[in-house]
């Protein structure tokens, strides 16, 4: 009996084929990692449209320098690093995200310029979103990776190139900040 077995291409094979000019191969890499990258960007930026822009920018950037991915078997981690960096660059350019926790009087008074936020503010999730957006970028990034993406400190360290103690400190400070911002929820 003949049986056709479709073997899923490895990441390294897809990188190789992408470098050889295969759109389909890069498209498959995009499909494989888009959800993870998008979730990270969405939780970091707080908006779906913004997340889509960030991830698209990152994936184009990655395509341009795909040959510099030194370990094609770990291309997912490499794409994540590029997306995380793109996220941070994007958010740094958005001044309101650089507001320090200590400068924010409280969630109930925040974001008066965004009607959508005002409408959603009553929901817990929306309040968490707002609180996350007020954390310093590195704390927000570490918190999102730990508690939204469910990564271990070791995995986070490998992705970001930051030591485990430093990441722990960022997560702890993020929780301290959230506790203050979400006082009635914790």
């Amino acid at each position: 009996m003949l049986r056709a077995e479709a073997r899923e291409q490895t990441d390294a094979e897809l990188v190789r084929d992408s470098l050889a000019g295969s759109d389909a191969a890069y498209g498959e890499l995009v499909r494989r990692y888009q959800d993870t990258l998008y979730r990270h960007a969405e939780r970091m930026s707080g908006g779906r449209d913004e997340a889509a822009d960030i991830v698209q920018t990152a994936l184009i950037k990655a395509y341009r320098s795909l040959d510099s991915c030194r370990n094609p078997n770990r291309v997912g981690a490499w794409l994540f690093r590029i997306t995380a960096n793109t996220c941070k660059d994007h958010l740094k350019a958005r001044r309101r995200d650089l507001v320090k926790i200590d400068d924010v009087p409280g969630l109930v008074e925040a974001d008066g310029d965004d009607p959508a936020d005002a409408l959603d503010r009553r929901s817990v999730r929306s309040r968490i979103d707002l609180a996350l957006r007020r954390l310093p970028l590195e704390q927000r990034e570490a918190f999102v990776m730990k508690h939204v993406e469910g990564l271990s400190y070791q995995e986070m360290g490998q992705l970001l190139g930051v030591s485990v103690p430093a990441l722990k400190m960022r997560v702890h400070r993020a929780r301290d900040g959230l506790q203050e911002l979400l006082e009635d929820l914790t």
Partner: protein
Amino acid sequence: MNEIDPRLQAYLDGELRLEDLPVVLRDRAGEWDRLLGEVSRSGQAGAPIGFDAQVMEALRQEIGSPGPAESAGRRSRPAWLEWAVRPRSVTVSPIAALGLAAALALVVARPWSGDVTDPQEASVTGSVYVQFVVEAEGARSVQLAGDFSDWQPSVELADPDGDGIWSGRVPLEPGVHEYMFVIDGSEWMADPNAAGSRDDGFGRKNSLLAVSEISGT
């Protein structure tokens, strides 16, 4: 700012069990579990439907990636040209790497006899694309300067994944070229991987790169 009790932090990091916490902290731990559960659930949505197609379309528009030429009905470049113009990691070690450069040129410097409809392609016909790679951890910017840019640091290298390895691709005419890297806009640095160098007459040495060419078909 009120700091969370370190034992509660350890619990939230998964380093302590609930029963290891003092009773007074357990209610607090439960509140955090509920909050973090909400955080986790709120992050479950993936990319929108069709997002991958949107990215690939944007890629085609921005980079001019040929895509599936058959379905798009567009001109397909020869495979060797696709290979030639695509960035790749080639650590440049001039002179001693003459063989490598020659081998590279052997493939990429061959004139293409197909239709030239892309001005950028046409302008670099006869040139050899060379990928420059340099390690500069902590640098905010790295540029490349050389005789091919009138020694203006006009070629920006990129480090998209932030690992300190900067790279960039430059079309070069066949011949021997002198170049240096410029770190953070001010620090001129020779290529540590260059096997050859030449005095610049000002007490420093420029790195050397040999690009050779073969006759086209």
